[in-house]
């Protein structure tokens, strides 16, 4: 007997996985951010607050620590989900877990991205409600719109990294892992080039597109599938229901 179909559809995992993944994943990200900010806070207070170069260096250090901690927590979450997956597989009737690891990877990456995006942008959104824009002290007046695009790139990136990361951990391809962490560090570093938006946003979007393509292929897609999908769509439009 097949287990009763869990409520769910392709783009959001079945309910159980969702309950496991989304808010808890977000919580894991929050914990990693909290730890990173604690480290940065302590280091700032232990150092000389007047020295601006040192403070800038500490900020870079803090950002790097935050990136590494996020990846560590992503790995920890992967381990947790693996255990949960095995547990579910054990108690299910046909020995297979109802949730696919790929779906879990996608949802975890997405929730990670959403919470990270929310935290990046909510502060800016709250201040954009007022009548003024950034710029009276000489900053770029395109601050709000570039922050929005950056946040969008970040959400996509986390989703794609989630998919690639889980797959790499599953297949023990550690060079993939290293590449994900490295690209995360590079993205974080590129944001330090703001407000020189040409030098920061464009490379970040290039990285996003590359990661997207890589995640697509990791998740099982292929160029042939895309063509098949488009031709299906052209010939039999009812299938999309």
């Amino acid at each position, binding site marked *: 007997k097949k287990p009763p179909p869990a409520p*769910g559809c*392709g*783009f959001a995992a079945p309910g159980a996985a969702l309950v496991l993944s989304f808010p808890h994943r977000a919580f894991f990200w929050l914990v990693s951010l909290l730890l990173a900010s604690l480290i940065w806070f302590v280091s700032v207070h232990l150092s000389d607050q007047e020295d601006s170069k040192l403070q800038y260096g500490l900020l870079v250090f803090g950002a790097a620590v935050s990136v590494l901690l996020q990846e560590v927590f992503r790995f920890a979450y992967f381990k947790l989900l693996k255990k949960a997956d095995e547990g579910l597989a054990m108690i299910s009737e046909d020995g297979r877990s109802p949730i696919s690891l*790929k779906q879990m990877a996608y949802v975890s990456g997405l929730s990670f991205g959403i919470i990270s995006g929310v935290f990046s942008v*909510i502060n800016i959104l709250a201040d954009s409600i007022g009548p003024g824009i*950034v710029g009276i002290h000489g900053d770029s007046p395109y601050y709000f719109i570039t922050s929005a695009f950056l946040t969008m790139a970040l959400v996509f990136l986390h989703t794609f990294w989630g998919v690639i990361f889980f797959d790499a951990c*599953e297949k023990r391809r550690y060079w993939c892992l290293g590449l994900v962490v490295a690209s995360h560090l590079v993205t974080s570093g590129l944001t330090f080039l703001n407000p020189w938006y040409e030098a920061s946003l464009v490379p970040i979007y290039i990285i996003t597109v590359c990661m997207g393509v890589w995640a697509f*292929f990791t998740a099982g897609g292929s160029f042939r*599938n895309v063509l098949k999908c488009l031709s299906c769509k052209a010939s039999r439009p009812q299938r999309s229901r």
Partner: protein
Amino acid sequence: MAVVGSTGGSRRVEAAAGSRWAPLPAWRGLLRALLFALLAAGSCQGNSVERKIYIPLNKTAPCVRLLNATHQIGCQSSINGDTGVIHVVEKEEDLNWVLADGPHPPYMILLDGNLFNRRVMLQLKGTSRVSGLAVAIAKPSPPQGFSPGLKCPNSGFGVYSKDYGPQFAHCNSTVWNPVGSGLSYEDFDFPIFLLEDANETQVIKQCYQDHNVPHDGSGPEYPLCAMQLFSHMHAVTSTVTCMRRSSIQSTFSLNPEVVCDPLLDYNVWSTLQPINSSGKVDPEKEVIIVATRIDSHSFFWNVAPGAESAVSSFVTHLAAAEALHKVSDVHLLQRNIMFTFFQGETFDYIGSSRMVYDMEKDKFPLRLDNIHSFVELNQVALRNDSVLWMHTDPVSRRNESIQTQVKNLLEILSNSSVGGKVTLQEVGFSQPLPPSSFQRFLRARHIPGVVLTDHRTSFQNRYYQSMYDTPENIRMEYPEGLSPEETLEYVTNTAKVSRMLYGFLIKMNNSWFQSIIKPDIKVILGDVPQHYVAVSSPVNTTYLVQYVLANLTGTVVNLTKEECLNPEKTPHTEKEMYEYAWVQGSLDPNSTTRVPYCVRSTVRLSKALSPAFELREWGSTEYSTWTESRWKEIRARIFLVASKELEIITLVVGIAILIFSLLATYFINAKADVLFSIPRDPGAAAY
């Protein structure tokens, strides 16, 4: 293959079955997280993004709304502040840009102090292209004079009316304040702020230069520098309306929202020979009242330096009180002297009308019968050739007995000035009394009295009731480079007068004032002294006049703190005759502690609230009905604004991306089984 097919099929069934309700847990979690984050971010004020956007203006004074029985005066802003593109107006031609040419109305004007006059203000009042005004104080003061007060101050509330001296009523014979423009008594529907700090004015002008200056006649380009002013007032129309609304709220609501407060404070009075304050004085005992006012006003809230209009007179009065108390045989004097300092006189004689009312209704130890004569000091600092003019009321002098008494009084006064540094001269019959507290006493009873001023006809003070009535106006100058202590002790003529002038005009928080006040109210002494009557009492000025008078005219008694604060429990204190105050004493130069002591004096406070509020006659034309509106927040800030086009483009792009992403997600989801066909062997799919 079959397994793949069935798995794919089950997925399709799941996809079909679940699309209705699966998104709910996802969206709920997302919504919760979003709400939490929003709350967290919204409660975080002063964060770095806000600091990138806004520059707050801290040293400003607003123009607030005041109401009387029939009108509202002052300024009002919208509830969420008024925003406008900044335009600096330094000469009259700049106004054309604001009124007609400028392409980005409404404008927020930064007006030079010299252009803050009636003509310009009425032009701005009539247009909708102005959303607010910030006035930069003019340094030095405008040489032609500036007075936002009326040409005929307190005209309907004095003694002259159509029934009494109609040829003198409403300044028919003498215009007392010819420079007066009446600006304070106009009603503006946009906010007006005063920029007190020249550095902030410079920041605003710099922002204007960088972003708003028109190039070659065409408009400047976005982003533009803008300013937002918040000064929303709760009261409208008149005192009648706002008091009615407040009383309804207070009666029926659990959480009353009072919208206005009457202007009130305390009068300070003291007698030379002690009198029983709880009883009534015999009608045979005669008292001479010496009176001055202690408050002033200007166009802006709580900016009222009042150097010539108030401080000069009451400091002279305090010095005279001190000198008289030092005379050894005061107790042998036939008549008592009452030194009275009236508060709220600027607003249709609040203090003096209340005292007359209390005297008539027997709520004051003295009655009108006890008053033998009245001497008032009004604006005495700007004397020409050291002449002080004596004004009397010509109408009451038509009565023979009053005429004799007044002539007697004038003679005594001019004789006493012979050989002194100041000569007193009479003004004559053709002139009425200037606006003074004596007029309220005359309304009740014909008392012989005289008002001493430095002006013969109209005021010498060209800055009457304005922000420019500063120490410079009365030619008070200190040499550069003195420390606050040295400036306090800088003696020009007599030590005490200089110290008082310094304390009431330059810096209230000085060591002498600190040593004569109560120990627990040290914090009230702010920086630059302002003498506005306000609505919470007592204000600094009243409090300090009380304690200075107690110090100058009282005696130090040997009582402990307990005995001093509770004189009714201590024998031989004569609680009804005297007031006891525990003051904190001066600071030893070597230690950090003070030596407090007890002062016994005859200085008392009497409530200065207009009788109209006691009688609940809010539309009264007999008594002052001035109230001040309440407000929630008053602040100002500058920032850059973007063009409407950029805002709309941002919004449209955002919505387009949202719709596109939703569509893309939907289609990918629908085609997920085709796009992400999972091969049976996981290894084979690796790339």
